[in-house]
């Protein structure tokens, strides 16, 4: 594949990683060019720091306070992850229930789809009120509600859009409904479920941060970002936002990695298996 190989290639894995790294090169170039332009233009046009700090200032602010900001981000990420687990878990269980009892599903689904269109994040002050500002569960709750709908709707779609002949095949073996779910519906719903989970990973971080904007303990990243803007410490606020983004991206990446490992059979993943 590659032009020069330094040492013998022991397995397909190295080749695969090499191929994937090469796939990333254009994205990395775009990122670096973007940062460079940002730095160059803010310097050239002397943009005020409170409008848009230079990347170097943001990096400096992060470096000066990295231990504290990191701890804040970990705290907020724990809220997000808790909300993700709770909301996604409930979403998957509900989807299985609705797929099993179609009549209930048909009755409930329009509302679930409609609920998906509600700006759920607007409920953040309400969940703060329910569980208390300082209770991490108030942020987990809003993150969980945000995660629930995309996971539920996508998983349900996966569970119900199964090749009818697969079901006929299992019926021909006298298999019951439990086997039908275990052997066909759940495995074939995984690609759909992961579409929902990847959305949920991003939404959970948004939910936790926005929940914190409406109040929370001082060791939370959202509270820290809000305080920094109010104290005109914009580079530090931007550093917090960058850190929140990094956690969101890594979380998304982790879910995508689990997806790749569990649904390597799916057509969308086959391209990486090497010809």
């Amino acid at each position, binding site marked *: 594949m590659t032009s020069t190989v330094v040492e013998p290639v022991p397995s397909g894995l190295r080749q695969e990683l090499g191929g994937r790294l090469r796939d990333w090169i254009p994205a990395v170039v775009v990122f670096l060019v973007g940062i460079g332009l940002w730095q160059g233009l803010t310097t050239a046009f002397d943009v005020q720091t409170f409008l848009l700090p230079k990347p170097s200032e943001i990096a400096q602010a992060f470096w000066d306070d990295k231990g504290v900001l990191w701890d804040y981000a970990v705290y907020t990420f724990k809220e997000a992850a808790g909300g993700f687990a709770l909301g996604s878990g409930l979403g998957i269980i509900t989807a299985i229930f609705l797929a099993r009892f179609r009549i209930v599903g048909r009755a409930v689904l329009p509302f679930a789809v409609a609920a998906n269109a509600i700006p759920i994040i607007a409920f953040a002050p309400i969940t703060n009120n329910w569980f208390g500002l300082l209770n991490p569960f108030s942020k987990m709750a809003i993150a969980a509600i945000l995660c629930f709908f995309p996971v539920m709707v996508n998983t349900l779609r996966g569970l119900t859009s199964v090749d009818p002949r697969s079901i*006929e*095949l*299992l019926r021909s073996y006298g*298999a019951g409904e439990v086997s039908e779910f275990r*052997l*066909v519906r759940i*495995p074939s719903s995984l690609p759909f479920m992961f579409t929902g989970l990847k959305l949920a990973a991003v939404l959970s971080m948004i939910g936790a941060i926005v929940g914190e904007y409406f109040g929370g303990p001082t060791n939370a990243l959202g509270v820290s970002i809000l305080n920094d803007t109010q104290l005109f410490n914009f580079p530090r606020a931007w550093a917090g936002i960058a850190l929140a983004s990094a956690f969101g991206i890594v979380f998304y990446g982790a879910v995508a990695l689990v997806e790749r490992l569990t*649904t390597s059979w799916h057509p969308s993943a086959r391209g990486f298996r090497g010809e």
Partner: protein
Amino acid sequence: MTADAPSVVSIERVVKTFRTGVTALLDIDLEVAPGEFVSLIGPSGCGKSTLLRIIGDLVSPTSGTISVHGKTAHQARLDHDYGIVFQDAVLFDWRTVARNVSLPLELLGWDRARRRRRVAELLELVELTGFESSRPWQLSGGMQQRVSIARALSFDPALLLMDEPFGALDEMTRERLNLELLRIWEKAGSTIVFVTHSIPEAVFLSTRVVVMSARPGRISDVIEIDLPQPRGTATHEDPRFFELVTTVREALAVGHGDRSVRDAAPAVEEL
């Protein structure tokens, strides 16, 4: 059939009307004796696939009775009395070839060692040894269909239901799989009900060809195929083979002619 042996499949006055009001099958009577290879042939919409699914208790008839091995079709299905092969292989992409073949055995609660032995035997039978850990999508269409046949045979069902199993394959693969199927049929001694729309295929494989006509789906003719067994490439050269192909073709044409006359009649009235 007045054979002494009890029928494997016994169908009496079966009618199937779909909810749309379309009569898919009308007054079907059919007996299939042990060891027979019966093909159902007819134009599309004649209900041949529906009839196969009724035998397998995957579709329930509107009226009439079906028994399989002297039991109700429902009981026969729960007792794993038949294996089924569809036009597409219907393999699960998330399972390896070996685990696709052993799927029915898992449902029957066989232990791992016994399953592995049986899968090895079956893959040898369909000439796929070495592909145990391949994924279905890595195989050609013909290989996939052989996996699906191995799966249907895995638990040694006395009855095999096949719904146009080679319909999606190219002619060369189809001929090779026809020969393989006959070899398996002779070896396993099973009874096969086979749906096809290929006249030469039906004549080549079957001991009896059931000709069906459409709207409503009925049995218009039953033709005994008296070609010598075992059959092979020489069978295709046998003059009797061509005679029988012609007989089936004419029977289909008669059924088809009936239908066009009937279809034309209301149109004239409407004018």
